[in-house]
């Protein structure tokens, strides 16, 4: 029997966890408009919050929640971008335990996919994208 977690709680936990990993590099969920003065930063986007549902009349008859958040790393210096992605991989991939600090929740596992690196010519920033799926027993 499970309940659906509030996406707001996921957002708070992701923000806390990422900021904790890469501090003092700033972390945002939308874009950093002050990127001229902050040459490296992270953004994240949450998607695919979904618990499997089973047949029957009981709404709480659901499986484990598996939301995915994409992490976008921005940095003027390409080496900074790669090293930041490594910090996240080392800290998050395969992690099991409390997620999002004291106000967060337990996750059974975090699974990180390092997707690809890129360069935005208009912004003049290197980018690296990662996907992280977390397994949340509710």
């Amino acid at each position, binding site marked *: 029997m499970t309940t659906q977690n509030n996406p707001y709680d996921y*957002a708070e936990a*992701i*923000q*806390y966890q990422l900021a904790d990993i890469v501090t003092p590099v700033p*972390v945002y*969920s939308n*874009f*950093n*408009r002050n990127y001229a003065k902050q040459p490296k930063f992270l*953004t994240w986007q949450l998607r695919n919050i979904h618990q499997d549902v089973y047949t029957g009349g009981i709404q709480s008859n659901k499986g484990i929640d598996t939301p995915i958040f994409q992490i976008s790393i921005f940095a003027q210096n390409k080496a900074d971008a790669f090293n930041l992605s490594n910090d996240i991989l080392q800290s998050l991939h395969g992690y099991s335990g409390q997620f999002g600090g004291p106000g967060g929740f337990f996750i059974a596992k975090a699974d990180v996919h390092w997707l690809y690196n890129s360069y935005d010519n208009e912004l003049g920033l290197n980018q690296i994208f990662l996907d992280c799926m977390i397994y949340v027993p509710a």
Partner: protein
Amino acid sequence: MAITRYENVEINNVTNGADSIGEYTTTITPWFTTRARVRDVANSLKIADKYRVYQDLVNLTFNYTPYMKQIVDDQDLYSITWRDQDWRITDVREADDRMSITLLCYYNAPNTPV
């Protein structure tokens, strides 16, 4: 004879950060109150078929002080409250004799605090 107007303005510190869900935040905290020579108040409105953008400009001239030099060096970290609006600094002109500093300040609506 030219008229010179001096008006009270408040200088604020601007801090950028993120809230608990990662939304970009701009926080303004008052730093000090002073008087500025106000010139060339210019309000303009750009009308398109789907939106209206107000862009207001004003020239504020201050005495050259260490605090003002600090503002010149990092203009993005300061804002000015004048006529109850939050004005941001775009252009800065230091007088060659280092007696005054003129700030060209803008206020726009819809507002996007940077």
